[in-house]
């Protein structure tokens, strides 16, 4: 029995770094070992599709904490290292290269990896995806005004990449299989607003069509769609979502189902093994169901919550999820719990792109999206948490302060 406890954290990104810092803030004096697959110090990913991609932010500005932080807090950083297996019985991590690390408890914060599809030509040079700073650097190298790019998939990452490329003077053709951008997240009515935002900035948008092949001699030269369009391009970027990076749990006995299944204390079914962030399919007490999200705020907060849980000081993790996406001059924010909705209530003006839209199920606000209306969205958090029916007319009335719509017995 070692005198000093070891907490290992697998994944040295937002969630892992937040957990490591929290362990020290909470006074844990054992070993904290933070293992990351990438060579860089923990950095922030949101700028990778925005300011960093445009060359408007140096890498140092994306660091989550200054380099000396890890030394000062005695956090052991093990970078450029992939963990291949978690041996739950021996409480041991197996690292690529054969090394091992024994732990007393471990937090899995491996996040996600970009989904790949069996599309011919996907591996051609000039076809990029975006997850890491190395990915962003590859795209940055080719960005030049006047070039033509095809962006495949207009989810949040694709839409942000399209926005950044336009701001750099790159011609953009965007291909999205659904009938609007962000269709699955926001539905048709709000999706049309996002479509307008991109069309106004000159994005040539091809909706309801999908890529069937990337073609070119030694490098991508065109994209072919299922409807037979052939789009010439200098490069292509695809953003078709991520899948949880949970392979390392194979054979561990830890339940994996759309990510690592954890309860509201970030605990897996195996004692001593915890998970948080994009990889964690967590039980959410507000909705009373399992969910997995890929949000920045969840990375920070759930990483911290997991750390406290590991120290036996956990609280049920019940944050209202939210995230932002900046595209051109539009600040888009989304809060709540994505679920099929039966009503959309708009507060403000879709035409002016300054509004809040609420997604209601059986009269309750499940989630809301704001465009250039962040203050109001923040005021809607207690409403989302309360899960009680609200009068749609009052929701829609900009004169009604959203904070007054929350029943007193369920404060934020």
């Amino acid at each position, binding site marked *: 029995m070692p005198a000093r406890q070891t907490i290992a954290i697998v994944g040295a990104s937002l969630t892992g770094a937040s957990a490591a810092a929290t362990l020290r803030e909470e006074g844990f004096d054992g070993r904290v070992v933070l293992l990351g697959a990438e060579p860089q110090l923990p950095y*922030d990913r*949101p700028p990778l599709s925005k300011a960093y991609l445009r060359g408007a932010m140096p890498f140092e500005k994306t660091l989550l904490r200054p380099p000396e932080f890890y030394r000062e807090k005695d956090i052991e950083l093990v970078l450029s290292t992939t963990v291949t297996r978690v041996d739950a019985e021996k409480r041991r991590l197996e690292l690529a290269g054969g090394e091992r690390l024994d732990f007393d408890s471990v937090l899995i914060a491996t996040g996600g990896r970009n989904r790949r599809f069996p599309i011919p030509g996907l591996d051609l040079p000039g076809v990029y995806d975006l997850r890491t700073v190395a990915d962003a650097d590859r795209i940055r190298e080719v960005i030049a005004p006047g070039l033509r790019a095809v962006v495949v998939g207009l989810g949040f990452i694709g839409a942000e990449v399209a926005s950044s490329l336009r701001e750099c003077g790159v011609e953009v053709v965007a291909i999205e299989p659904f009938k609007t951008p962000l269709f699955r997240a926001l539905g048709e009515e709000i999706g049309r607003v996002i479509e307008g935002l991109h069309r106004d900035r000159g994005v040539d948008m091809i909706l309801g069509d999908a890529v069937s092949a990337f073609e070119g001699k030694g490098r991508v030269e065109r994209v072919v769609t299922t409807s037979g369009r052939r789009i010439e391009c200098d490069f292509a970027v695809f953003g078709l979502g991520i899948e949880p990076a949970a392979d390392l749990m194979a054979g561990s006995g830890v339940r994996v189902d759309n990510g690592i299944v954890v309860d509201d204390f970030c605990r897996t079914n195996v004692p001593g093994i915890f998970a948080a962030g994009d990889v964690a399919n967590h039980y959410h007490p507000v909705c009373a169901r399992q969910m997995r999200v890929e949000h*920045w*705020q969840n990375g*920070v907060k759930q990483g911290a919550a997991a750390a406290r849980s590991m120290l036996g000081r956990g609280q049920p993790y019940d944050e209202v999820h*939210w995230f*932002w996406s*900046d595209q051109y001059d539009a*600040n888009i*924010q989304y809060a709540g719990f994505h679920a099929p909705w039966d009503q959309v209530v708009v507060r403000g003006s879709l035409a002016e792109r300054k509004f809040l839209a609420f997604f209601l199920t059986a009269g309750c606000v499940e989630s809301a999206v704001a465009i250039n*209306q*962040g*203050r109001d969205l*923040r*005021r809607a958090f207690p409403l989302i948490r309360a899960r009680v029916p609200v009068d749609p007319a009052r929701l829609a009335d900009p004169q009604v302060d959203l904070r007054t719509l929350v029943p007193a017995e369920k404060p934020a």
Partner: protein
Amino acid sequence: MARFVTVANASSIQPGQVLKVEIDNFPVAVANVGGTFHAFDDTCTHEDCSLADGDLEQHKIICPCHFAEFDVRNGAVLTPPATVPLKVYPVRVQGNDLQVEF
């Protein structure tokens, strides 16, 4: 040289309110926290957003763009994504003039 500049009528900012003003074309926010005024840079240290467009909750200003939170009394970061503290300025009330040292 720093000097006190009159930016508003003190009675024009009620407790719980924030007002954006400009001093030498530079955006500064003034908040009234329970009768005490606090002045600070209006632009969030995280990204280019006006803090005066956000909500003031007691001594906490919440950026409307990415919900970073600062303590208006000393500029301290209370909630990420901001990591850099906010610059704050001395404030005084002369008669009904609200003045910020700039």
